[in-house]
């Protein structure tokens, strides 16, 4: 077990541990902006713990698909976090072409939740499933385009290499490309993780729900799986944005064989802390956006996705002419 692999696995375990804290940070920011004290930062941990110890209630209409959906969502989110690297590290499951695997895993998780929602035979959940399917159908090509632009800019097809190529030198020579990519990925984060302005994670009104309404009938451990999977997915997207955002100077942390490099444990700690800091800053920013904006009308949401696509397309053009 090389030092590189050990630190990658450590980073993944850190992600599993800290993902619910990100949701807590977002909720605390929203509460403070609203003049309230807000729930504890660790509330999602308490919720998941409580839900795991409850007995679920299933509807007569549902079947094995209803129970399989949340498990699929969580399994794919876990695997997705194993593909996402921290800045300067490489993910434990990294290979050339893993960006397609990432998109495919998200698609599978989404498919599981959509089918679980349709399994309940309720109009509400069908509505959520239809909306979620449509918005992610628009988001998918944009996601691929953004990742492909990043692959082209870094010359490699592995997300770990893509992120480690985003250094201060790359930023200074091609800042417009990375800025456009960040904007595009941020809008995708809002869409895929059901944040304002695409969806409101707090309300339970028909007009304003997509993800929340899909998981209305889940209870007990299934709901725990769904909530934790949502936290992991948000963490994965935030890691992606933090990877593109952090202009750390190119300091190899490991030797080509995988042993500890010239910067030792201090370098590893600094890199990991910087990534975590930027992830939580993204969380704070999302919280601010949720507090200062209202959710868009439903037929404006494709315009948000078109905007994300335009940013990615402009990034591709910036690369073409570079």
């Amino acid at each position: 077990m090389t030092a590189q692999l050990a630190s990658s696995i450590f980073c993944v375990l850190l992600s599993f541990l800290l993902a619910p804290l990100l949701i807590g940070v977002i909720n605390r920011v929203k509460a403070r902006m609203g003049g309230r004290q807000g729930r504890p930062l660790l509330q999602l941990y308490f919720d998941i713990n409580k839900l795991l110890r409850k007995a679920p209630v299933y509807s007569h209409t549902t079947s094995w698909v209803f129970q399989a959906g949340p498990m699929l969502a969580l399994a794919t989110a876990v695997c997705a976090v194993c593909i996402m690297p921290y800045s300067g590290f490489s993910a434990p499951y990294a290979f050339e072409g893993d960006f397609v695997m990432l998109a495919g895993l998200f698609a599978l998780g989404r498919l599981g939740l959509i089918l679980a929602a349709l399994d309940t035979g309720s109009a509400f959940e069908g509505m959520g499933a239809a909306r979620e399917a449509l918005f992610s159908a628009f988001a998918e090509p944009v996601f691929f385009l953004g990742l492909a632009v990043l692959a082209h800019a870094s010359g490699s097809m592995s997300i770990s290499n893509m992120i480690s190529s985003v250094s201060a030198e790359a930023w200074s020579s091609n800042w417009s490309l990375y800025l456009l990519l960040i904007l595009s990925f941020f809008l995708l984060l809002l869409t895929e993780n059901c944040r304002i302005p695409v969806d409101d994670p707090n309300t339970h009104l028909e007009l304003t729900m997509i993800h929340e309404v899909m998981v209305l009938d889940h209870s007990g451990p299934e709901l725990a799986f769904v909530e934790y999977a949502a936290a992991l997915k948000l963490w994965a997207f935030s890691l992606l944005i933090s990877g593109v955002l952090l202009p750390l100077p190119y300091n190899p942390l490991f030797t080509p064989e995988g042993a500890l490099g010239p910067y030792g444990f201090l370098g590893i700690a600094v890199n990991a802390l910087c990534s975590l800091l930027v992830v939580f800053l993204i969380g704070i920013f999302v919280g601010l956006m949720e507090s200062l904006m209202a959710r868009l009308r439903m037929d404006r949401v494709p315009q948000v996705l078109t905007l994300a696509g335009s940013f990615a397309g402009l990034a591709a053009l910036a690369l073409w002419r570079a």
Partner: protein
Amino acid sequence: MLILYTILFLLLGGAVLSLLLGSRPAALYTAAGSVIAASVMGFTFSLQLLLAGVTLSGQLPIPLPLGSCLFTVDPPAAVFLLPVFLISGLAALILPSRMMGLNAGIGDQLAYGRHCFFFCTLVLGMVLVLTAADAVFFLISWEVMSLAPFFLLSAHDKDGKERYAAWIYLVAAHLGVLPLLMLFADMSVEAGASGFYALAAHGAWKKPGLLFVLALVGFGVKIGLFPLHVWMPESYPAAPGHVAAVLSGAMVNLGLYGIIRVILLLGPPEIWWAYLLMAVGGVTGVLGIFFAMAQSRLKRVLAYSSAENMGIICLALGSGLLAMLHRADLASVLFLGGALLHMWNHAVFKSLYFIGASHISHSTGTTTINHLGGLHKRMPFAGACTAVASASLAGAPPFNGFMSELLLYAGFVAGALATAGTDSNLLFWAGLFTLGGIAGFSLLCFARVYGLVFLGAPRSSVVLQGQSAGSDWRFVMGLLTALCLVMSLAAPRLFLTLQPALFSFSANIGLPLPLLSEDSFAHVAGLLGNVAIGCVFLSTVLLALFLYRRSLAKRHPAETGLTWDCGYRFPTARMQYTGGGFAEFPAGLLRAILRPRIDQPGLSASDNPFPRAAAARFESPDWAAELWREKLFNKISRLAGKAKIIQQGVVNLYILYILVALLAALVWALGWPS
């Protein structure tokens, strides 16, 4: 070659024997037996050929009016032969029970013998098309293959709609042969011989671009390229399960084989061929999935989705040509290998879906999505198999659809990297975007179809007639489902099996070598291997979660109740989302492309104070079919109507016509200078 002749003889023998046996059930078993035997032999034969990478040739001393009975099985043909044999064999397994089941509800004697004769002829025609090495022989086999489904589709010829479906199929098949006739006639006249070897050895063609376009149009009708796809949504729903599986899983690939063969015969491809293939493939894929999303009947969705997948393969083929022309080695391997792998995968999951859909339509009597729902409680096995097919079609890991689409995505990125700074770079970006859009919408489409048909509560009482499939159907569906998973995990090995075919393609295409390298293949196989490991890891995590869930369930057993639905206490099945409801928002957003017809009556002032009953209608017609009908067929039929004046029904007039014709012939024979 002896094996090939044996296969052909088996199929021909099965056809004739079952025709002689007439309406007896023994005809069904004879045909099924001969097709299964031929398929088993053929599958092993083609697999051996492909693995060895050799080309076999032969000739039968059967006199043809033009050309000769030349056979060649080379690696590209072997690649296409494998799904033909697999799907035909599996379809033949369910042929007896399907045909006997058809008779059970109708009461009139269906001509089993006739159906089996044409089924064997269809398989025979497909094998002949793939192994023919002579242009005239190819055309004859193409005709045989195209005509046979007409008779298979008209099993219920008392039903007007089924007659119409068979009729549309016949018209499309024949109109498609016309460009092929022109193409092969031109090529044979120019080269002086009609054998494929002679055509390949011919140097530079006078108008290769025109020949390529003729091939694209002629074979495009069979593939379902837009706007030539209009026969598919009408014909596929009318076909019984086994026929639909063969049509969509095996026959549609032959159009691809035709295009590949013509590209190989025409010498070095020009760059606009790649552009054209990419454009046509992209448009077909996008429009196919948009139309599929808005259909209200299950089999029509599957037909449009076949067109969409063929569009993806054409897009991949065009991109592969473009990569080859730019000498981008890795990208070419990824595209061409991905196209062929996607063809194999599509054969498996599409025929699985059609067999499942046929089972539904057979037991419940309908495939309208708005009448179904909650079917998986009535047919759990078919439901599970269709779930796997839906996930594969949507391109979700760990199934095989994801593997081939992965190759295409990686190909687009590799191609963009290899052509950095040129205009083709933008084309690869556009292709990636198109493929991503198609994949996203196919997830929407198949989540809709599977969710509304199998999940939820029954929307009408026909669902209660649904029943589990018989053991032969279960075997076939189970085998295809297992293949979906196995082909995904064994994707590296499958990809390496395609290697001889790709090398043969690159060797004969006429561009200066070397075009593909061994370590690109190793690289791609490594990529697929990593993804397969990831799929195994995903399954492990899923299994761990499942065991954890079970241990939790033991401690806190579940209760059952009504669907909570945010607190509404009286849910009914009619409150569920319908097919139209699911598709309404996307169809509305894409209304410029889809042109749906939405008929929503508003309230009028005369409805004071209580509004009367009204009806809303949401329809998504195929505007390409309507355009063909208006601009071409209706005009021709009007012209033909005017020509009816010749037919007065008076014998004296007809004798006058004969007299006039004879006089004209006499004048011509005597007065024309020789």
